[in-house]
């Protein structure tokens, strides 16, 4: 069966851990130091969904600054799917994500989406911190995952879930 190539965007506010999520998924590594992504960085990884369709993901890690530029919107074009990310330690990142989602949907109305709440290693998940995040995912009818790139929790699962939606 032919490998299907798909452009996937990683979306979210700055510093929520998009690059760490990709590093964990593509390279299976994690770094504590924070380097902001300027513009866009592209990675590649093969993924199989539950039907064993093989996808070649071209993952566009797009800078997450508050101010939208035309360039960022141009980067969205042609995406088959996106992983939306918000930081469990920063509820404001969820607000920003809503506006990112709106703009992304305008450009790619048919794209498949998965939501990842990141940095679960920094919060007490059992205390219900994530409720706002799960509510947001439900409101937007998105499959969601509580993830940690550091502890390698639910990272690969998120991408495989996205592959299943394509």
């Amino acid at each position: 069966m032919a490998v299907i190539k798909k452009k996937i965007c990683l979306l979210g506010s700055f510093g929520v851990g998009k690059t760490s999520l990709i590093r964990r998924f593509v390279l299976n590594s994690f770094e504590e130091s924070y380097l902001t992504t300027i513009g866009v960085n592209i990675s590649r990884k093969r993924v199989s969904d539950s039907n064993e369709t093989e996808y070649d993901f071209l993952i566009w890690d797009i800078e997450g600054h508050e101010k939208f530029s035309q360039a960022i919107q141009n980067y969205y074009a042609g995406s088959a799917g996106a992983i939306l990310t918000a930081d469990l330690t920063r509820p404001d990142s969820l607000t920003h994500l809503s506006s990112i989602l709106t703009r992304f949907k305008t450009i790619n109305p048919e794209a498949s989406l998965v939501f990842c709440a990141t940095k679960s290693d920094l919060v007490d998940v059992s205390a219900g911190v994530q409720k706002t995040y799960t509510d947001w995912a439900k409101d937007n009818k998105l499959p969601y995952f509580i993830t940690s790139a550091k502890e390698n929790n639910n990272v690969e699962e998120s991408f495989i879930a996205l592959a299943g939606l394509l």
Partner: protein
Amino acid sequence: MQADNTQAFQLLKEILLTEDRDKIQVLEAELETLKLSLRDKEALIATLEPAIADLLSKKISDSKSEMANALAPVMGAAIKRQISEAKETIIDALYPVIGSTIRKAVAEAMKNLAKTVNEKIDQAMSFRLFRKKVQAKISGLSAAEILLNESLPFQLHDIFYIHKETGILLAHFQPDTQSIQANEELLSGMLTAIRAFSKSAFETETERDLNVIEYDDLHIYLEDGRYAYLAVVISGIAPPEFYKHIHLLENRCHQEFTTELRGFSGDVTPFSKAPGIMSEALGFTTDASVPTTNPHFGRYVVYLLFLALISFAVYFLWPNESTPPAVTDTSTESVRFNEHKFRTYIKKFYPQLTAQLNSVQIVLHDNLIFLEGSVPSESDALSIAKAAAQVSGNTVIVDHLDYHSAIQNYVRKISVYFKKNSAVIDSAYSDLLKQLAGHLTKADFSLLTVYGFSDFTGAPDANMKISKKRAENVRRFLVANGVQADKIVTTGFGSYGTETDISSMDGLASKRCVTFEVK
């Protein structure tokens, strides 16, 4: 007696100590002078100056590394400061060294170039030199330019065929299969991102795109297409015709893969034949230098002379009334286009396309003919391009044609009018609706909305009902004539307004109509 002894002792002391006391006084005076000279910097410098050079010289000679360690931290800052404070002096000091180095490097490069050119001339004596001159005449370049191009070798490294929107690599061609390309997929993605960025960064009223990226001696030449673009990596000086070939290659790929590109969903299998097309189209460039030495060149010259003789005979001896409609008024030096003959040709052979001529332009650029503008469908574009090619005798490149806005404009102008209390389509509109159906079957659109209207007499419910029926009847007619049923929706507006141009009809009749909108 005691007094005498004391006096004698004093005298003895005088005799023994006077000399030492004088010496001490002199020493004290000298010490005082030395102290003063230490406090006085200028005096100290004057004192040490004669010895300092010897001291440093001795120290450097005794322990070089210690001196280096001691001076290293300040050397950088000192040089920087000196350059900033006395730039001209530094330049004057360094120029004899750096200037001669640069001169030497340039001289070496020129020597190599001269050597290569001389070798080419030596090799090309007799028939080959003659051939170069003929080649120069034909190509429009001087023989020197041709030799220079050969001396600064042009090389094609890679051609990437990249989906414009997603940045996904569709195909990759490498003439030299030994070359290594680190990650072609990421390269394609990043090139697309750079294009997207530069497009937004330098946004202007006119559509512009990034055309060339230079990296050291590599040039990445970008040839834009409607759905995909070519990124061509070259080094050296490309001959002018190379860019024409790239343009034609993009056009060929577009024509070959239009269907696959339109519905592209990530499967690149259909594009596996693209490298073969590239290889075939640019086969002549895979050697180290371009223009390459064509082993059949002499034969081609004979063919050309033969063809010229035949053309001469045909032109002068063929009877005028039998002259074919193709007008070849182009010269070998530059492409010309006769607009009047083109329009006449269209009217004669493609009368149905006459109306489309107002929305297309023929553009001459770099000795190439481009067809631009908007037409409702690709097949119309190809017919117009075919006519232009016949008239000009040259290849016509279909470029940046906007099919969608053309079909939108076309559809917006159409209205179908109905008799009172009737939803039956008048036979007078059959041809118009068949023509519309013909365009829609060829056009790339997602949805056609048919709006039905009535006049304002009668009950609102009845008006609504008949307006819906009128729209539905038109829909049926279009479907019967080949338009995809699931791409048409109908809406009845009753007597509520009309969006169509009704100036040509008076009164109530102008309200009883159907109009269209396409998306």
